[in-house]
């Protein structure tokens, strides 16, 4: 039995990656996920720039994770300069972060993953076959975008977040209206859980080292220690002890590994490591989806995103209620305590652990920057998953085998590119 799968640019992922699999005489010979682009350029772009510009520059790395990059960037500068955020700033940071988690997860599970299970090649035919599903996804996405815009002044590239706090504050009437919309969205969230609970997730188990942030009192999205399911716990400043980046010839992305041959970040890693801190309704959703840690089926990363949709919706309502109770006061950004400095900012962006590490000089300009992106950390694990997955599907005809492999890639929700839009017209 000889088979060759060569998918040039896997569809329904953000950016460009190729699958190359060769089976010869029933044996797996080649198995690679080639990354043909890399977002690592921006470290050079940050050098020599004032720290105050860093969050605006890095938020443009991605049209999906803009708030995530901005948040990690601000935390890196804030830690470098000894800036302590006010309680109000923390609430607002967490609230807009939930908005982005919702926005990104809805896009991934509905637009990128669901078409595989509903038997269509993309979201366009889904409009005809399942219009209510597409309209629900758009409603949920609109709400998430409006939530971000309410807090940070604009959806996608946040303009109101600054080192030390915010430059724009939501009005009480806006918070009240948003609270009601989130409460009304619960029926869409429930329908989402029901839909994904019915999908026939492929059977596949491969245990790995799950890496995420962890905080003692909340399901960590911003700050916290870096922990792994193999018992490692380090403060963010020691991230290199976990990420251990290394290069391979076929990829422009750096690979990572820690205790095992590979590690995984993302919603499934967060779910496995921080399940106990999920909102009770999110735990109920996990039960409906048949999930209890430790989940070792990579395909269920998308289901873990559905669980987080429930969590972020409920926690957003809680945060807004707290803001309504205490009132929102315009305030100056928290002061800088010292310069120069060095700091590491960490956040659990939709696709997993994001690390920004800056050194800031006496003149307030960045002298060195290092950024580690979730997808880079996952690619090594994806290749190991592919090696375990191919023997299970190689008896199938090539088109089916190809789809199975593409679905595995899409389960990671890989985000390989930045928000570059180039329309190519062939003549």
């Amino acid at each position, binding site marked *: 039995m000889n088979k060759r799968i060569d998918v040039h640019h896997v569809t329904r992922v953000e950016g460009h990656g190729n699958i190359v699999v060769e089976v010869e005489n029933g044996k797996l010979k080649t198995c690679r996920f080639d990354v043909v682009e890399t977002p690592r350029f921006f470290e050079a772009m940050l050098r020599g720039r004032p720290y105050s510009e860093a969050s605006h520059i890095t938020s443009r790395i991605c049209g999906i994770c803009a708030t995530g990059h901005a948040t990690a960037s601000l935390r890196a500068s804030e830690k470098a300069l000894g800036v302590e955020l006010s309680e109000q700033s923390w609430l607002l940071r967490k609230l807009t972060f939930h908005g982005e988690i919702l926005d990104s997860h809805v896009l991934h599970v509905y637009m990128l993953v669901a078409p595989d299970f509903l038997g269509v090649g993309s979201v366009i035919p889904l409009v005809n076959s399942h219009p209510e599903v597409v309209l629900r996804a*758009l409603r949920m996405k609109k709400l998430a975008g409006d939530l971000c815009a309410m807090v940070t002044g604009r959806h996608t590239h946040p303009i109101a977040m600054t080192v030390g706090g915010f430059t724009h504050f939501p009005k009480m009437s806006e918070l009240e209206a948003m609270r009601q919309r989130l409460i009304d969205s619960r029926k869409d969230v429930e329908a989402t859980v029901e839909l994904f609970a019915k999908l026939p997730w492929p059977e596949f188990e491969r245990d790995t080292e799950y890496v995420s942030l962890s905080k003692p009192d909340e399901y960590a999205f911003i700050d916290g220690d870096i922990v792994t399911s193999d018992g490692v716990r380090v403060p963010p400043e020691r991230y290199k002890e976990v990420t251990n980046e290394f290069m391979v010839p076929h990829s422009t992305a750096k690979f990572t590994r820690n205790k095992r041959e590979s590690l995984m970040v993302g919603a499934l890693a967060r779910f496995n490591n921080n399940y106990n801190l999920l909102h009770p309704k999110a735990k109920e959703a996990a039960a409906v989806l048949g999930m209890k840690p430790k989940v070792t089926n990579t395909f269920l990363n998308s289901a873990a995103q559905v669980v987080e949709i429930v969590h972020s919706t409920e926690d957003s309502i809680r945060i807004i209620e707290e803001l309504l109770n205490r009132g929102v006061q315009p305030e100056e950004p928290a002061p800088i305590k010292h310069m120069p400095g060095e700091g590491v900012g960490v956040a659990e962006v939709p696709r997993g652990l994001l690390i920004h590490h800056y050194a800031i000089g006496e003149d307030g300009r960045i002298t060195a920057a290092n950024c580690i992106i979730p997808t880079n950390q996952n690619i090594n694990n994806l290749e190991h998953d592919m090696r375990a997955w191919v023997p299970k599907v190689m008896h199938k005809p090539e088109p089916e085998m190809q789809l199975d492999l593409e679905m595995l890639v899409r389960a990671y929700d890989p985000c390989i590119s930045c928000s570059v839009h180039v329309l190519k017209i062939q003549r």
Partner: protein
Amino acid sequence: MLQGPSIPEEQRQTLILGVGNTLYGDDGLGVRVAEELTRHTLPAGVAVEVAAVSGIDLVLRMDGWKRVILIDAVQMGEKPGTWHCFRAEDVRYLAGGQTLSLHETGVTQALELAEALGKLPEEVLIYGVEPERLEITEELSPSVQAAIPEITQHILRELWKREK
């Protein structure tokens, strides 16, 4: 910095969207044209925004506007800086029925999805500009830079023509 629309829903006429990423050389040209337009007096009901976002977000952004003008880098195989004003229908034709997945969540996909959902504005114009340099830089190439005043003037004429 361009702000979101402050125009009440019932007064919304034309949305101008500069699409692209200013960190990626000529891909940022749509944003530069949008910035240029905000320096001019615009008819009532016209908003200018930038969008370095995915196709799905473009659908949501276009929703509720009678007319949308998009400005974007388009690889047409022409001399850098060459630009054309397409209609939504033309772009679909030119794209040649390629698979409209969300792989590159770009403008054609957004238009197709908007149409399928019945959310396509009455009129969609796309100013496509041939890029010279798509690489990591915040500078536009001279050829594209030179086209920006012409495109800006053309859009301004289009906007005021409809007011008469």
